[in-house]
């Protein structure tokens, strides 16, 4: 991979889809020229039976590569494949301009069922051990374990927790005309293992994760009008939350998952409401003749950010969850909508419209400035990764919808492509502990 640091690189993930949902392919569109050279040496397999087709080290290297911050060395270029510290010849790796090296082993866990990934991370120049850990996972969770290892390496070297062991939700639309089918899909953050959690011949949109990572709220038109459902991702059990007259849209969970912000137009026009998830009681938060929608909570749970065209065109506003007068947040641009708040609460990503071009832009609340991150033309639905490093969004290529991710600094861009049909409405899960 080292040699192949061009602006357009293709990395196809070979994987088997578990259910009907089609596999996503992830490729890097814009790489980072200052990516850190790292060697993830093939891990020694100590379990009975053959290793899986996607080895632990391949998954780790793939995660680090797609972050755009690392440039993993091709296994074929490695002069040796040590799995113990005493066998690493640091001088050789230094000559090959490798800054960091990861070695490890995989063995059966003490319970005889799960897996233990034993690994070490070294600084090649200082010949210093930076990390030495054992990650234990249950049977069937070896991929998850590999993502956890990548998370730890990423955190050690960048200072930011990794988000590789998280998941993404998105909506696919396949077929045309009366044969169109919508599915809400959940997959690993690397696109692996997509599972359709609900399918419908009518539109599905606006998936939003609960902060415990167990549930998804979404909007479905299956009854003819918009309705909000909450579904348990693991069991498939679902609950109808709202299906009143008018719009039932834009659900968002509060950080403690006790409340949900939603858009209802039962009063005659869309307003933001807050629903208590335990009692089902709903109170109105905004009251204006304009369109108020796309509410999200601030990470501390004290504020709601939402889209409103009360000033003439859509802009982001903020209101305390306890109510009060909304204040305008985005002060530049003719169209700013669908806020996603960064995990530290300092930035908001929006879909920014200018003429016929829509791009993902990030508003810095301290400097009160926008940074435009994507090239357009129809970019929407930004969703921050739980570590704030990347923003997942929907865009169009020709007449089809695809997902892309861009690093928060705009330097790295990856593309997630479905083999057929449209992909849209991405939502990045919280960190699953």
């Amino acid at each position, binding site marked *: 991979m080292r040699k192949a640091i061009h602006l357009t690189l293709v990395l196809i993930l070979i994987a088997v889809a578990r259910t009907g949902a089609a596999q996503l392919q992830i490729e890097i569109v814009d790489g980072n020229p200052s990516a850190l050279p790292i060697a993830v040496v093939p891990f020694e397999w100590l379990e009975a039976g053959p290793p899986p087709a996607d080895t632990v080290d391949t998954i780790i290297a793939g995660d680090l590569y797609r972050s755009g911050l690392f440039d993993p060395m091709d296994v074929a270029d490695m002069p040796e494949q040590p799995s113990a510290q005493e066998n690493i010849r640091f001088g050789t790796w230094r000559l090959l301009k490798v800054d960091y090296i990861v070695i490890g082993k995989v063995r059966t866990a003490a319970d005889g069922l799960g897996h233990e990934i034993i690994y070490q991370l070294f600084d090649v120049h200082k010949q210093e051990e930076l990390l030495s850990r054992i990650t234990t996972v249950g049977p069937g969770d070896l991929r998850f374990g590999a993502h956890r290892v990548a998370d730890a390496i990423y955190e050690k070297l960048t200072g930011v927790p990794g988000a590789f062991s998280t998941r993404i939700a998105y909506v696919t639309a396949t077929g045309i005309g009366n044969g169109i089918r919508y599915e809400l899909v959940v997959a690993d953050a690397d696109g692996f293992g997509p599972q359709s959690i609900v399918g419908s011949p009518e539109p599905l949109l606006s998936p939003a994760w609960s902060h415990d990572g167990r549930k998804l709220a979404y909007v479905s038109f299956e009854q003819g009008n918009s309705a909000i459902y909450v579904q348990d991702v693991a069991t498939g059990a679902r609950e109808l939350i709202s299906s009143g007259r008018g*719009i039932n849209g834009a659900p968002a969970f509060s950080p403690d998952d006790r409340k949900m912000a939603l858009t209802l137009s039962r009063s005659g026009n869309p307003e933001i409401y807050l629903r208590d998830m335990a009692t089902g009681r709903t109170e109105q938060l905004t009251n204006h003749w304009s369109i108020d929608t796309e509410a999200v909570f601030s990470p501390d749970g004290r504020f709601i950010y939402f889209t409103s065209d009360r000033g003439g065109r859509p802009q982001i506003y903020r209101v305390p969850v306890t109510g009060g007068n909304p204040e305008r947040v985005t002060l530049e641009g003719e169209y700013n909508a669908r806020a996603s708040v960064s995990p530290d609460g300092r930035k908001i990503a929006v879909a920014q419209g200018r003429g016929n071009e829509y791009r993902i832009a990030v508003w810095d609340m301290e400097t009160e400035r926008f940074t435009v991150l994507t090239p357009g033309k129809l970019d929407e639905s930004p969703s921050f990764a739980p570590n704030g490093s990347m923003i997942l969004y929907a865009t169009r290529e020709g007449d089809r919808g695809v997902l892309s991710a861009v690093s928060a600094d705009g330097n790295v861009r990856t593309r997630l492509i479905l083999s057929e049909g449209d992909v849209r409405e991405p939502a990045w899960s919280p960190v699953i502990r």
Partner: protein
Amino acid sequence: MKSAWRLTLALIIAVALAACKSTPEPTAGPEQQPVEQKPVVETQAAPDPRDYTDSRNFDNPESLLSKRVIYFDFDKSTVRPEFRGIVAAHAAYAASSGSARMTLEGHADERGTREYNLGLGERRGNAVSGLMSAQGARGDQLSVVSYGEERPTCRVSTEDCWAMNRRVEIVYTAK
């Protein structure tokens, strides 16, 4: 489902129309002595297109009642002057037929965010609903549903296509 219904309905109408068209040919024979028969045929076949209380005008291309789509400007919900006549025609029909019920389906083009566009589609539906109410339709005859940008009639990212998608469709659930 709904669109499947509409398709079926359209097919039935098309078959019915085809049947009507073919009838003049067998009766072409008696055309040599048509004097008494002609007026009878004409009053049945051609209602006054401006009589919006006459349900036959729903299928009369000469009548505004046969038109059921209102188009809008980008990010706007004002009914343009050229579409006011269509709205007025359906309002007049609703006022004359107490059993008439219609759903005003509001739509937006793909630009902008999906949830905001749901709001925009509803606002367009409400604009048509408001005009109809002002012209004699009762509130319980009208319901508004917004599909936002989810049901485009045209899927190309061009101004012409977007213009086709920014619309309110008048769908009768009872006449």
